[in-house]
């Protein structure tokens, strides 16, 4: 392939040379070149090896539809599968070809081509099963996996991409002729408009082809410059360049990705890509068309490319990949390439057209005649041949004779398809156009408008009327632009999908999907085997499942299938176009919502104190809660937890309970509402008292628990578990609004208004007396499960006497901003009494000694209050509450349900493990019937041995008997089943 530079070009800076490396060799390109155009300048066309047969592959297109030229960008964390036809080069760029070993020139993988007659469609379903199924895991699959896949894995990469949301009335996708005209009509209207184009410069076919000779009697370049200026000056139009719309979701929600480093190396620490998330009232699709190829023997040889791509390299990148390409076409679209070549002082080696002589456009005929270009009409290419590049082609002319033409480049055109990918993503329907032989948008489902070739209008004559008609609803100014064309032709095409090879050979391949190495023979084989539905055919042959998703070939496959099945193409249908339009970077999707911003770290009002005092934190939902406190760096968790819990039993400990949910329930019917939500009855409850309460789901299972404080019949405060805060509030609001709207009741979350300090232990009373001198903490004045409002240094506080550890305890509720001061005060006052902070682990241990449950750990959504032995909490007299009816269902009143029990090892020195199961067999020969499992288990320094809570079948009636607990090493430990309480059974310490 001998390329030639065309220096009269406004996009390439020929004065600015750029060096880059491809497979270790240094080459030169110019500023504005893509990798593909730079390689073509250096006459390199072999850029990769195909997926299955490892055949040599070249640059086939000049855009995003590229199936072959996928390269690895070593200088950018070795990013795989990058399209050479899109990525712009920069100084010092390092690029490697993919999927070949040891080198591109001689790839060991091409041995597959030798065995290719066996490796046809779906061969892997019919073999790799013998001689034993172990072969698949240890031999066949590893081999297949190593051969498959294109690029090598990239390096670890922590990118910076951000998201920008847009809310606009109109989004115009595509800044070509139609996009610019549409945008012009919205200038200074009261519509917010977003114009998006994938290229660095707006203009589309104005820049990429020779079709237009003048617009409104001006040079296309000048008209373009003026129009862009006009649009940029308009206040209501925003332009996004280098931005590709990848996804069109339901209710006009678009996703687009912008590359922020086009033509330069991404700078660390700078945003390298932006994901635009656009909510638009209307979408106007003018993203143009894509040319399709033709199938014939060896249509994959390097040096073969699409004719409009060759033309785009000439117009957009100032480069003719070859001085004298052969052109093979079945339609009028490739006329403008002939015009372009001749204008640049070159000419095609031959022009082959499958159409008959009369159908050839007159001005093309004159152009070819005047420049004596060999013309073959009614002719087809039977095959292309050459070693790792095209060297000659075999043409069967109208008389049937075979002509051999030597050439270094072949331009193909099988017709053009409107780019309907985004239109079908919007759930619009397509319709086959028998005249233009392609699918065109027909019935939109959302407010979607298609213009220009994206809507299937391949001629320019009714451009104005089409746009004015479709934009009528917006009442914008009418368009009347005058166009003159270089090749003023009406689009004309003759049906041609495939040319059969000259001689029958097992190795002759005519490709229908270049990237996945799918041949037309594979399609015929799939249909003979019964995979005649287009979706089956795609999955069986993997046709159009590559990274290009069959952009230049999927319509051809439909044509071939409709011929084989003798069905109209509309009956064959198409496979579903799935987002994204082109592969979308993971880092861009993640945006800033990852790494340090993955999820908020919710902090309690005294979080900084915890950090300063050696707290080790645990994640509880989004909260960070002190798990335990280390008095020095090498104190183990076990020692810390034993120290903390012992201190609560002997002196006093203090826990930060601010993360528990706190909901205020107010209103005239607050009492009736609370009786409906919780199992307990609050009617006879005295004002100023508190009660431990359970909340069930409608299925009767325990969902959450907490302490309810009754200020009055019209005012309650309920606490919830940390994890349950949002769901309990949500459930209350749901039932208040949807089931009992007649009740006058309101709920406010006051979780963050108050910090909560739970202090408990034998010496608590002395500490509280010193910390709050003006309050009387005697048992008579301040009995168990009551609360009082006080003021401390002008701060309104509430103190509730309750305890989760089984010791004398108080919960102090303090407005969050004043919490740190009071916490510090209690710490200093409590020092002399041995007061020390404790974490969640010690709290779990202490509450388990008392047999108190933790919802979510001792319950799993399938446990009722009766199972937990908490039937005393059910207000028997109440006529209704959440889940009441479910408590009377056959399965809920069963006697042998799983019930809460205590477990201690028969031999006190033995260990118990959480999550293990209680069984009756000493030896484990699985499957073993299980009675239930250990929900919580700890070593207790108070008891001097391990102990656990468990939920087991028929639990209560088994108290006093022996059983076994399984161990993680599949052994068993003898256990005694006891009552689920291990400390101060009759609560003397609580109420004294």
């Amino acid at each position: 392939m001998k390329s030639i530079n065309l220096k009269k070009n406004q996009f390439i800076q020929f004065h600015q040379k750029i060096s880059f490396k491809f497979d270790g060799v240094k080459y030169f390109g110019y500023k504005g070149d893509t990798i593909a155009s730079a390689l073509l300048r250096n006459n390199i066309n072999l850029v990769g090896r195909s997926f299955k047969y490892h055949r040599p592959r070249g640059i086939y297109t000049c855009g995003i539809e590229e199936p072959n030229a996928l390269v690895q960008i070593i200088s950018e964390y070795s990013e795989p599968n990058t399209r050479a036809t899109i990525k712009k080069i920069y100084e010092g760029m390092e690029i490697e070809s993919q999927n070949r070993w040891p080198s591109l020139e001689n790839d060991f993988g091409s041995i597959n081509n030798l065995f290719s007659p066996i490796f046809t469609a779906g061969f892997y379903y019919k073999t790799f099963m013998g001689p034993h199924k172990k072969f698949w895991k240890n031999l066949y699959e590893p081999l297949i996996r190593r051969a498959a896949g294109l690029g090598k894995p990239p390096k670890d990469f922590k990118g910076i991409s951000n998201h920008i949301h847009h809310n606009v009335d109109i989004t115009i996708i595509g800044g070509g002729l139609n996009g610019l005209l549409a945008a012009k009509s919205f200038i200074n209207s009261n519509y917010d408009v977003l114009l998006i184009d994938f290229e660095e410069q707006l203009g589309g076919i104005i820049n990429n082809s020779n079709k237009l000779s003048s617009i409104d009697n001006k040079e296309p370049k000048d008209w373009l410059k003026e129009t862009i200026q006009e649009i940029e000056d308009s206040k209501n139009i925003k332009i996004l360049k280098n931005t590709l719309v990848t996804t069109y979701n339901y209710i006009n929600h678009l996703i687009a990705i912008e590359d922020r480093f086009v033509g330069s190396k991404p700078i660390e620490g700078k945003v390298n890509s932006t994901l635009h998330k656009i909510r638009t009232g209307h979408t106007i699709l003018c993203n143009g068309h894509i040319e399709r190829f033709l199938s014939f023997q060896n249509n994959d040889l390097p040096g073969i490319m699409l004719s409009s791509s060759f033309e785009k390299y000439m117009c957009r990148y100032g480069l003719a990949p070859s001085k004298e390409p052969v052109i093979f076409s079945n339609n009028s679209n490739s006329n403008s390439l002939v015009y372009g070549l001749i204008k640049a002082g070159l000419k095609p080696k031959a022009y082959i057209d499958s159409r008959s002589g009369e159908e050839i456009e007159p001005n093309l005929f004159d152009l070819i005649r005047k420049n004596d270009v060999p013309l073959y009409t009614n002719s087809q290419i039977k095959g292309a041949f050459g070693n790792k590049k095209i060297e000659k082609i075999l043409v069967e002319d109208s008389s049937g004779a075979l002509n051999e033409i030597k050439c270094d480049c072949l331009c193909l055109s099988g017709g053009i398809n409107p780019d309907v990918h985004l239109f079908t993503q919007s759930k619009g329907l397509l319709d086959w156009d028998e005249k233009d032989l392609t699918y065109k948008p027909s019935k939109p489902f959302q407010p979607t408008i298609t213009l220009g070739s994206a809507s299937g209008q391949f001629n320019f004559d009714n451009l104005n009327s089409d746009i004015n008609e479709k934009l009528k609803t917006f009442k914008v100014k009418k368009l009347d632009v005058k166009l003159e064309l270089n090749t003023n032709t009406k689009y004309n095409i003759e049906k041609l999908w495939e040319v059969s090879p000259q001689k029958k050979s097992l190795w002759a391949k005519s490709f229908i999907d270049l990237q996945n190495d799918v041949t037309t023979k594979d399609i015929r084989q799939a249909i003979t085997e019964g995979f005649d539905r287009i979706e089956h055919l795609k999955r069986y042959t993997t046709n159009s499942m590559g990274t290009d998703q069959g952009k230049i070939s999927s319509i051809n496959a439909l044509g071939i299938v409709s011929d084989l099945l003798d069905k109209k193409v509309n009956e064959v249908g198409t496979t579903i176009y799935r987002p994204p339009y082109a592969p979308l970077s993971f880092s861009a999707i993640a945006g800033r919502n990852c790494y340090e911003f993955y999820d908020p770290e919710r902090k309690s009002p005294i979080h900084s104190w915890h950090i300063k005092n050696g707290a080790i934190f645990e994640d509880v939902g989004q909260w960070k809660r002190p798990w335990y406190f280390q008095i020095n760096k090498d104190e183990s968790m076990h020692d810390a937890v034993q120290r903390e819990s012992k201190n609560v039993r002997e002196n006093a400990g203090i826990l930060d309970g601010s993360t528990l949910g706190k909901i205020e329930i107010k209103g005239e019917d607050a009492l009736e509402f609370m009786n409906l939500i919780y199992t307990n009855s609050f009617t006879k409850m005295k004002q100023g008292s508190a009660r431990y309460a359970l909340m069930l789901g409608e299925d009767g299972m325990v969902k959450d628990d907490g302490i309810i404080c009754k200020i009055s019949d019209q005012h309650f405060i309920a606490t919830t578990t940390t994890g349950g805060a949002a769901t309990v509030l949500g459930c209350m609001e749901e039932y208040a609004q949807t089931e009992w709207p007649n009740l006058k009741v309101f709920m406010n979350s006051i979780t963050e208004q108050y910090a909560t300090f739970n202090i408990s232990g034998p010496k608590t009373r002395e500490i509280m007396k010193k910390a709050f001198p003006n309050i009387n903490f005697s048992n008579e004045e301040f009995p168990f499960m009551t609360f009082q409002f006080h003021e401390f240094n002008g701060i309104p506080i509430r103190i509730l006497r309750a305890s989760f550890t089984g010791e004398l305890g108080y919960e102090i509720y303090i407005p969050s901003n004043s919490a740190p001061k009071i916490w510090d005060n209690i710490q200093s006052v409590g020092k002399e009494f041995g007061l020390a902070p404790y974490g969640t682990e010690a709290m779990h241990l202490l509450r388990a000694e008392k047999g108190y449950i933790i919802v979510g750990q001792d319950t799993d959504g399938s446990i009722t209050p009766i199972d937990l032995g908490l039937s005393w909490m059910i207000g028997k007299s109440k006529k209704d509450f959440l889940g009441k009816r479910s408590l009377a269902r056959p399965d809920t009143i069963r006697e042998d349900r799983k019930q809460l029990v205590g477990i201690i090892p028969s031999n006190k020195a033995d260990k118990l493990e959480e999550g293990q199961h209680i069984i009756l067999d000493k030896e484990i020969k699985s499957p073993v019937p299980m009675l239930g499992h250990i929900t919580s288990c700890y070593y207790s320094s108070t008891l001097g041995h391990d102990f656990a809570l468990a939920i087991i079948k028929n639990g209560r009636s088994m108290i006093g008997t022996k059983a076994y607990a399984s161990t993680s090493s599949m052994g068993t430990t003898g256990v005694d089943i006891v009552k689920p309480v291990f400390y101060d059974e009759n609560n003397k310490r609580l109420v004294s």
Partner: protein
Amino acid sequence: MKKKYSIFSLAKNALSGHKDWPKMWRSPEPREFYDVIIIGGGGHGLGTAYYLAKEHGLKNIAVIEKGWLGGGNTGRNTTIIRSNYLWDDSAHLYEHSLKLWENLSSELNYNVMFSQRGVMNLAHNEHDIKEIKRRVSANNLNGIDSFWLSKEEIQKKVPIMNTDNLRYPVLGASYQPRGGVARHDAIAWGFAMRADEMGVDIIQNCEAHQIRTKNGTIEGVETSKGFLRANKIGVVASGHTGVLAESAGIRLPLQSKPLQALVSEPIKPIIDTVVMSSAVHAYVSQSDKGELVIGAGTDNYNSFTQRGGFNIIEDTIRAMVELYPVFGKMKMLRQWGGIVDICPDASPIISKCDIEGLFFNCGWGTGGFKATPGSANVFAHTIAKNEPHQINSAFNLDRFASGRLVDEHGAAAVAH
């Protein structure tokens, strides 16, 4: 005539240019009467017909499918297979299926590419650890291979995983070595081919409209190709089962929600096991073609459009790029959705109902693919014997009245 597939049959056919391969299945017009009609041509439906013919000797069977075989959830899932479920009933059902998977390729003589590369469920907080340790213990006692892996052991199996500087660090995982992935289309085509060989009529583009009953027993089904009479009808049409049940006056506790998944571009091997993470609800494996197959969460509303919101994809990917830094420079190739029909206790329904001769197999939620052969096997038994098999007795329809549920919410590893 029994089709034989091997390297030798491939070589023989290569010589004649692969022109004379036999058709995988006939596409007959429906006959007027069948002993059993299976509504739903996915993996479960085709498998049921296969086992009815093979193990219960029934001959006059039809499978009717409104679209193309395997076009529903069979063709849309992330192909993960495991049996480490919590409750005994579920564990036995999924283990029964895993055992069938293990020699399905040889039984069908069609390579379903079941790759037992192990399945890992990550724990990201203390609550996860407790739940996973309980499940591992229950699995072992039910005879299912299941281990607890420490962070170091995870690192060895999945070197690309970043376990520590994460918002929710990886604290450990459960691991089932016999779990893995398979080629989803192959099981549908394999069952269809062998069922067809035994005389089962497989009829595509035949949509069931209305189930017809007469005083409490089944009569037949109105379809787009006319009324088909039958003694027994098995409805296994995932989300649409509820719609059809309604036509027979039966209300099923199903809710159909979109579940999304995506694949990356194909690259050389980087991950050799399946990793599931329910806390950040994202799970990943690498297909033999080299694409990373990533499952996301469900949208929280009912829909049959097989599409979901982009926010679900965002939530999964932002967890992935943190858990696997190597994904930072990779790209999403394709994104789609399926319809998962979910029961309130996240367990399936394989059951008779009040109408004689009418059977339902649905409610698989996100666990359908791994259960394909096992579900088909026990459903065939239920239909043939008019009594549930011991394995699926717990998954009856009236468990919702009695309250004896099999609550597998945690095990499905997908927050729904």
